[in-house]
């Protein structure tokens, strides 16, 4: 959890009632006993507030994490006890659901499809959005504001307004049931966001740095590649993560554009698993845990980029 130090230090400045130093001293006129009673009541109140705070914190943790925990713990429960046993902890974990998932479904193929889509989306979004955002901040032309505003606007389209025409156009172009078509769709949802995030980043970067490089004999293109891009690494990482998330989690476009089992990405494959055999909960939960796992790993290592992107409105949901 890097990057939290500066956040929490600003947080601690905001003092809330009950946290500040005790400022009401008992008035000297009052008799000794009453003063002590007031003191102890204050202490009692403070303790109660503390207990209340920690109760709320624990409630938030349980609310946020328990469903995820329940998914994971159910996925390693022995399959014959899955429907009978609802104990919260047990040992040892049983991976029969996972082996069954791999043996009976195309899960690994679907996993690879998802990885391909995610990598393609990250790479192409990064390249295109870097050129667009850089051009929009450094080139002189009319309609810059319109360009950036239209990015935000595109980000708010109903997904079906893109998916319906894409399905029709891909039929015509021979991209039906093709991962190339799906890649185009994923780019359509990730690019507006990527441009928006990087635009904010490049805009904030002082122009002097490139100018210095150019004075030293670099062309503007070289300055962009050698100075601007390396300095924008945090922005590029944020864009990469959110492009990954959009592609990895996409259900709508994969549902509409992909038909055959071999081409499906994980979200659609998993959803159809439940429809096909209704009681395959063990496999379904194992599959769901495996979709979530890569996200958790990235989340732990890149927490601050998640927060940065999130507060810029990065992920629609």
């Amino acid at each position: 959890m890097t990057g939290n130090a500066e956040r929490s230090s600003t947080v601690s400045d905001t003092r809330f009632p009950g946290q500040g130093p005790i400022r009401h001293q008992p008035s000297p006129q009052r008799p000794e006993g009453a003063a002590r009673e007031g003191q102890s009541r204050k202490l009692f109140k403070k303790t109660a507030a503390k207990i209340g705070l920690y109760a709320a914190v624990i409630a938030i943790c349980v609310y946020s994490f328990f469903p995820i925990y329940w998914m994971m713990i159910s996925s390693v429960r022995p399959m014959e006890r899955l429907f009978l046993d609802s104990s919260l902890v047990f040992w040892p974990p049983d991976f029969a659901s996972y082996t069954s998932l791999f043996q009976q479904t195309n899960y690994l193929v679907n996993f690879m499809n998802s990885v391909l889509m995610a990598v393609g989306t990250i790479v192409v979004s990064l390249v295109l959005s870097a050129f667009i955002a850089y051009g929009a901040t450094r080139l002189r032309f009319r309609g810059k504001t319109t360009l950036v505003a239209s990015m935000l606007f595109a980000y708010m389209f109903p997904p079906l307004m893109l998916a319906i025409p894409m399905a029709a156009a891909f039929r015509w172009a021979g991209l039906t049931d093709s991962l190339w078509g799906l890649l185009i769709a994923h780019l359509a949802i990730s690019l507006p966001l990527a441009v928006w995030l990087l635009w904010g980043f490049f805009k904030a970067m002082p122009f002097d740095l490139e100018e210095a490089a150019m004075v030293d004999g670099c062309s503007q293109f070289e300055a962009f590649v050698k100075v601007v891009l390396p300095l924008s690494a945090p922005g590029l990482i944020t864009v990469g993560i959110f492009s990954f998330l959009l592609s990895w989690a996409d259900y709508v476009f994969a549902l509409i554009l992909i038909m055959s089992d071999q081409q499906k990405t994980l979200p659609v494959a998993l959803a159809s698993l439940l429809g096909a055999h209704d009681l395959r909960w063990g496999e379904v939960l194992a599959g769901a845990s495996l979709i979530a796992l890569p996200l958790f790993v990235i989340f732990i290592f890149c927490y601050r980029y998640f927060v940065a992107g999130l507060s810029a409105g990065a992920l629609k949901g």
Partner: protein
Amino acid sequence: MAQDWRIVTLFIGSILVLGAIIGGPLVYAIMLSFYSAKSFVGELQWVGLANYAKAIQDPLFWQSFANGLMIALSAIFLQVVLGVGIALVLNRRFFGQSVVRAVSILPYFLPTVVACLIAQWILDPNYGLLKSLLASFGIGIADWSSQAFTARGTIVLVSVWLWTPFVVTCVLAGLQTIPTQLYEAARVDGAGPWRQFWHITLPGLRSVLVVVILLRGIWMFNKFDLIWLLTKGGPLNQTETLPTLAYRKSFLEFNLGGGAAVATISFLILAGVMLIYLRLFPIDDTKQER
């Protein structure tokens, strides 16, 4: 300063690609809505506004609109109330604050599919955790997906669980912009926590909340995957919304023109509401800092 031709070329090229993959489908969607396309392979036939007329004469269209509005409004309300509440707690100092904050935004990054499957697993009327929990109190439960109220309630519940962290993160950022002196002054004047919240915290969060409610509103109204995964519009169209209706028309009834018309109308409604909203609550750029 001379503009580097490589930068210019790459910029224009990228813009063209972007325009083709976003602008292209948009234009094509509007075009499709004026045609009758009986299937994906058949010829297109110009029908003018017939798809639109048919769409708004369909009672299901208005029912879907009302359903979508109801689901979106209740989800947004709960997300904002819960989000502000959680943010206020997480803004206090306590042991393990940064870890708890991370845990609290975790659901936001889960794919919708995963959240829907977890909900279906917990709420399963035969094998779910809720069933066994309630059974130990001697209470039986029915299938949530068989009744309008519980089906809508489940959709709202899952939406709240998944997307409240967005509100939490934005409100937490907003809370840092409220000057501490205001609270000190209020305490000196004898204002309790409740009055401090109404007179300082809430007004201080106004600009954040205006944006958050707008974004959440747009995304909830456009929501397709969550509803389709949970109920497919059932029972008896009680959770059908405009996005699911557009999907049903296009891909189950193979009426591409009709589906495109529904999607276009719902987009126009959304754009109209957005304009009114921004008129009522103009976004104050000077206060908003990113």
